[in-house]
């Protein structure tokens, strides 16, 4: 049973009072002023995904907000100069560090760091006459420093796009893909030189079948497992980093990856057996053959990738 608007308002007011009491510096904010922001945040993170959320879940969510940071941001939005000073002094270094990380050179980093404060303050006014800066999007769910890093990162990408009119990541990806396609397409692979045309044909057919079954198996994985596969195999993160994104330890991510390997292999074999009428032994043998040929095929591919990476870093 979902909550009534009156009950939600009461929960918001009570949550605002608790947040103000929890904050080290409430910056002369009243609960009513804070209630509006809390309601917006709750709608975004709770009711949007779970309209039937109960009071306990809402209270728990509100009590987990960063009360100090939220009060600081609200005070800045209200035009409190002390709050702005505190924000600048407290998070100036964070902004500069994030700008340097997100920018390819120092000049661009300075440019990003200068412009972020203007973005935060808001060059345009909102309908109520107050500056419509990016601070209005801070919810207090995450830390203010992390949010600033995210904002700086997005801003850096926007500036980069405006300056180069190209997205570097997509360019790299395309270049890599082109290089790989070229390697596969012209038949320069190691195993292709030693394989007869009949073998090559059968191998390509088997490889296509396996690839199709593999795509199907990956698509059927749960989202959490798919995200791990994406982070590890597609984005090239290390297990430690992929685990950090998912909020788990490297060992947990490794165990999860091993489990996914087993599930994917089982699904691929099952698909091959179903579609081709193969036995389990035949499906397993086909997988092994394709993997063995990939082993000889991947090495020059990886070498080409590393060479292109070195060349890009040198330029």
């Amino acid at each position, binding site marked *: 049973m979902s909550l009534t608007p009156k009950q939600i308002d009461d929960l918001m007011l009570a949550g605002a009072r608790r947040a103000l009491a929890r904050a080290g510096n409430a910056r002369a904010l009243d609960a009513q002023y804070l209630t509006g922001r809390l309601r917006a945040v709750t709608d975004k993170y709770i009711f949007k995904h779970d309209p039937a959320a109960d009071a306990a879940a809402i209270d728990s969510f509100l009590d987990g907000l960063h009360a100090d940071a939220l009060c600081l941001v609200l005070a800045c939005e209200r035009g409190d100069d002390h709050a702005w000073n505190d924000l600048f002094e407290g998070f100036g270094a964070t902004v500069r560090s994030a700008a340097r990380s997100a920018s390819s050179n120092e000049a661009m980093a300075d440019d990003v760091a200068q412009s972020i404060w203007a973005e935060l303050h808001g060059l345009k006014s909102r309908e109520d006459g107050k500056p419509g800066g990016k601070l209005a999007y801070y919810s207090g769910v995450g*830390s203010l420093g992390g949010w600033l890093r995210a904002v700086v990162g997005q801003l850096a990408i926007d500036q980069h796009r405006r300056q180069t009119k190209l997205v570097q990541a997509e360019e790299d990806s395309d270049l890599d893909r082109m290089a790989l396609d070229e390697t596969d397409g012209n038949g320069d692979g190691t195993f292709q030189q030693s394989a007869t045309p009949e073998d090559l044909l059968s191998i390509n057919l088997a490889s296509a079948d396996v690839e199709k079954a593999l795509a199907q198996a990956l698509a059927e994985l749960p*989202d959490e497992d798919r995200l791990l596969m994406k982070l590890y*195999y597609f984005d090239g993160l290390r297990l430690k980093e992929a685990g950090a994104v998912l909020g788990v330890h490297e060992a*947990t991510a490794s165990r999860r990856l091993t489990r996914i390997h087993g599930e994917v292999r089982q699904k691929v074999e099952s698909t091959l057996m179903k579609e081709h009428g193969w036995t389990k032994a035949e499906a397993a043998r086909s997988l092994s053959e394709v*993997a063995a040929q990939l082993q000889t095929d991947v090495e020059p591919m990886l070498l080409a990738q590393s060479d292109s990476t070195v060349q890009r870093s040198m330029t």
Partner: protein
Amino acid sequence: MTPNDGQIDLLIRRFATRVPAPADGGAHLDADELNAFAEGALPAAARSRYVSHLVECDQCRRHVSDLAIASGAVGRVSEELPEQRKTIGWWATLVGLFSLPVLRYAAFAAVLVIIAGVAFVALRRRPVAPELVASNEQRQEQPVSAVKPETYAGDAPNREGTVKTSQPPSVSQTPLPAGVASTTDTLPKVDTAKLPETKALEPSKEIAAAEMDPMKKAETVVPVQQPSYAPAPPGQSQSGGRFSQGQVQGGAAQSLGALKTQQADKSQSEERERDATKDARLDDAARQQANQSVLARRSADEKQKGGPSRNMDNVAMNRSANEMPRTESPRKSDGAPADEEARQTRSAGGRKFVRQGNRWVDQKFKSSMSLNNISRGSDEFAALDSGLRSIAQQVGGEVIIVWKGKAYLIK
């Protein structure tokens, strides 16, 4: 990573390079959502939605990855896990102790331990049993050995070193364990020489001898180990063949009884002489026992003179066998059965106690001593020496104990 995992790993890596990046869904996550996801601060429902988006959206996924790495989530997760791993490890260890594979080995080990225990007990009892049997036979049949049939008298030297002297020679000559031989080797030759003369103990005497406590047994053995103490009269031993078998048996019993009573009466008379000065009742008892000792001596004298007084010896034997540790009641000599049970003695903590009414009295107690009244369970009782308390607890009831020159009446 297993070979199968390696194959799948290779296939997925290959697949990842060949699959084109999906088109952006359009609605990316904003900075606040990205940061909240990277910091793991999202509610479960929202996080599930964002995971679905991140799987498809490379751009948001890269943002989240960068934010998670930049925010130190890598180190944070690494620091948090050891405690979690420790808990899991402890629990896993506990569960692992009772898991089926471990219990399988535990059951096997338990069976081995049981088998080893049974084997140990069985092997341990086997060599001990003959010794126990031999010692029991020796102790119980020692008096019996003194009443060997006369027909075995000529075989006495051959029977040295045997215990079951009451058995026929063919049985007694069978080899015995070393322990048995060593015990019987200690028997003096005089004893074996006297065996034919001292065979015929009556069954009641045998039972009485068997029921004697170790002290009495020791007293029984002592004169045997000191053959020069009471040698048989030459006339009696020489003329033994002329006597009837009953007379010979009676003479042997008399001589043995006399030895026993002399030994017992010697110690008893000393004690009774001390007791006589303590209390009037004890004086009566001492007097009575002194009379008994005189009676025993008289019987011994008569024996030595060659005139066996079987009745007197029997009385002395019975008393020495059954009543030796007890203090005779002065009225016992009068033949009153109720008075025989009225006075009892018992030992506790190496002391002898005489029952006087409802009270046990230490024989060392003198009427001139002043009594310290102490109740059991009181603080004074708890403050007593542990030895004194131990004696009081062993005796029970009201008891007078003389301890370190002081008399305590413990109720």
